[in-house]
């Protein structure tokens, strides 16, 4: 059970949060113009990295805000937390 530093509330227990999968997957602005393959790429394809991964998290039992986390999935170490729409502070 790790600790997450919510950018709006501060450090809280993981149990207050829900994970929302890979970050920085932008919903296409013109879905109708995409081929089946292109749409499938957005719809289904997600990375599942052992190592550093960019993820969406939601403070569901708190401020209910979504934000992004850079987490190492092998040891749950969190390298960065930043608000939705912000550029990732690390690469």
């Amino acid at each position, binding site marked *: *059970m*790790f*600790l997450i530093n919510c950018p709006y509330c501060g450090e809280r227990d993981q149990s207050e949060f*829900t994970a*929302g999968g890979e970050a920085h997957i*932008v*919903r*296409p602005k*013109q*879905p*109708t113009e*995409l081929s*089946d393959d292109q*749409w*499938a790429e957005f*719809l289904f394809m997600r990375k599942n990295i052992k190592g550093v991964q960019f993820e*969406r998290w*939601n403070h*569901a039992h708190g401020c*209910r*805000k*979504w934000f992004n986390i850079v987490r190492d999935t092998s*040891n*749950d*170490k969190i390298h960065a937390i930043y608000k*939705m*729409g912000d550029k990732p502070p690390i690469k």
Partner: protein
Amino acid sequence: MSENLRITNNKFIDQTTRISFKFDGKTLYGFKGDTLASALLANNIHLVGRSFKYHRPRGIMACGTEEPNAIVQVGKDSSMTEPNTRATEIELYEGLEASSQNCWPSVNFDIGAVNNFFSPLIPAAFYYKTFMWPANFWKLYEYFIRKSAGLGKSPTEPDKDIYDNRYLHCDVLVVGGGVSGIMAAKIAAKNNLNTLLIDDKNTLGGTTLFQQNECFKINNSYSNEWIKNEIKTLYSLKNLTIKTRTSLAAYHNYNYLLARENLTDHLDLKERKNKIRQRLWKIRAKKVIIATGAMERPLVFNNNDRPGIILSSSIKKYIDYYGVKCGQKISLFTNNDSAYETAISLNNSGVVVNSVVDIRDKTNSLIVEQAEKLGIKIHWKSTVVNTNGYKKINSIEIMKLSDDGTSVVEKKIKEECDCLGISGGWTPRVHLFTQSGGKLKYREEDNVFLPEKSELDQISIGSCNGDFELNEVIKNSVYSTNKFLNVNNKDYENLEVTSSKEIDKKNIWLLPSDKPFKKTKSFLDFQNDSTANDVKLALREGFKSIEHVKRYTTTGMATDQGKLSNMHALGIVAETAGVKMGELGTTTFRPPYTPLTFGAIVGRNVGEFFDITRNTPIHEWHVEKKAEFENVGQWKRAWYYPINNENMHEAVQRESKAARDSAGILDASTLGKIDIQGTDASEFLNRVYTNAWSKLEIGKCRYGLMLNEDGMVYDDGVTTRLSENHYLMTTTTGGAANVLSKLEDYLQTEWPELDVYLTSVTDHYGTVSICGPNSKKILSKIIPDLDLSDKEFPHMSFKNAFINDIKCRVMRISFTGEHSYEINIQSSYAKSVWEKCFAAGKEFNITPYGTETMHLLRAEKGFIIAGQDTDGTMTPIDLQMDWIISKKKYDFIGKRSLYRSDTVREDRKQLVGLLTDDPNEILEEGAQIVSETNKQPIEMLGHVTSSYFSPNLNKSIALAVVKNGKKLKGQKMFVPMKNKTINVTITDTVFLDKENKRLNA
């Protein structure tokens, strides 16, 4: 009680307070301060169980958590009985009743011991090999195996004890209250760090507490005297919390730890009433200091499992701490110096020490010299090749070791004894360290795995970090703690420590015997009964990974998780396979370190606290009317209202008929309600629903279908436009929270530019739904000034109104196909409005109906229930609801997926109606549908999703999803059941009032 097994000058046991207890039905006596194990030993009872596989007699072997044999069932009460408890950890209390667990019918007469004679037939994986095939035989064997394998009995009634969970935050957590832990806790607390020190024993001090030996002195006093003063100081420190009888169960990431505190298990039964039995502490520590010590290893030699063979350090604790002699004539067998401490303690307490058998060449450390000075005989470079005695050891056979240690030489000496102490060296307790993700390194000189690298803010100190000599323990623990806490405590700067230094080390994982190896029984895992032979067999059969060997032989898989056996298993595997220990790795230690009760885990979350229960504001009325309730998510919803002993079917038939014939009333408060406001509210709805919303007039309602991005139906409900920029959305009862989350997600992440605000108002309003041809008359009685004409207040519209000056919202919407209204009013008024409606409807025989009738009525109309008729694989087109997909809108959630190659397939499963040939035959929901009965295998074309007997149509009706169903209207199909096949015909989904005339009736 055999008085002669107790020494009287003991400081830790209160020999003035006698305690009576029962073991295997026999009344025995012990003293306050005893454990069940020490009291049994004082009564000369060693035999406490039978081994798992061969049912060999087994005795108490240790004095703490690592005990593999003395596993007992405690308590007789069917709600309180607890299996798998270690006699070495049970503090004796008045009235304790315990029984041997792993033997049936009794510990002395044991049917399973027959296994022992057949033991050559029971090699590793015997259970797998014999009973996996043929499968039918397993059923036969299982009963006897389970019974004689003694896995303990679970309580059959709810646990009456009280358990608790609490959170705790600290700067420093110190696990283990031995020398290292005590010093670390003192350093931390004295430097103003908020410190917690826990220990699983009932007192601090570890083994130093009873170490009164010339060879171990601190500042010129015995180390036990010194530590007593240290403990006294600790209890006066104000930043320090000390919890004894508290064992660390799990060490998770981010220094999150679980510790179980035992609060009442040591009390007399009558003192426990209304007290919390166990508390699970959920600890967040900024820094963790692990000081869990080390445990002694056994030695692996022929017949090393007889009752009376005990770990040497445990014999020492029994004599020095509990004042109990494990025997009158004790032999010791060792590969290291620590057995000599035991020999000296025994000698000082007047116990005859026959000899020490030491596998090493003669060595001259301080402690060995002291033993020699006391006249204790030592067999150097020797090993025990066999032991004798069935229910208790009575002699050992000793031979000299060859120079390379692989065989024995010279004459065999037989030595009579009633107890054998064994010591195979020490294993640092690194379990917590590895649980936390730490990596181990191997130290070859004394064959130990030690903490190497951890990602967390933690250190290991003392013997769990590989320091075994007192002066090193003290020096290194103090240095490491100061460095770790970044402080400079000088309390222990000038300590003068005397300790014996071990000079020679030697280790043989599997000791040789004069008998051929295959004829020996050298046990590795005492609880799961696996031998060195089993491990070697596994290797011969091709198993290489230690994890596989472990599972195949079950070594280390019993309730003690192989605390005593793992190192030897590894050693033998490495030796046989010719690899280095360090390269082999270890098996994984998983939480909990010691078994945890379910009670401690769930704490207070039992009974009505197990989960949140949500009641509607009208709930009490339903209870008064003796409604049966149905769980819908966390909600309790009225299911049906039986009168005069009606069963469910009868009640539902009556309610359904009444709702269509005259009037029905339903509590719809549980439907999810989301208040949507903002200048972009209409645009937002356009994007989340499949149909168009911009042109919906103020005061009008519209049904909407919400999809997932994959095009599958997610939720549905009616949304009302309250004003230009203000909507009230309803969702399904079960979907409310998820829909809100989904909408918030899109608003925050995809469309942050939209000016929209979402508020859940589900609990703010109660909803009374009245339906049926007389609903209009009833409503007009309650709100006389509201114009209910179809022109002013048509279907799918809404009005603000007042009931007794209380504002409410009235929607004319229908989930039953009847003329109906939904009154939404502040929750606190909902019950009185309901009662008003009920009173006003009396003359029309208004009938309260529950969820079952609601489901039946909507099925008659072919309305879907998201989650019942859909399952996350149905598109609106599959549901034959093409009409609800806007052709004009450029985009909405899931739109693009509706014309993916898979979603446009014609032969997808589609929603259809089903009528049975026999109108009285009611289909089972979930039943499969096939098109023919003769061919095998039959293709499953679909299944029944909703099925009822309709009292209004006087026949059975059903909804189903069927492959290519749209095109199969009028086709005959079959529903094969266990004893018969039901003939059905595919129909339209609307069974009643296809023209929707009743909406305006």
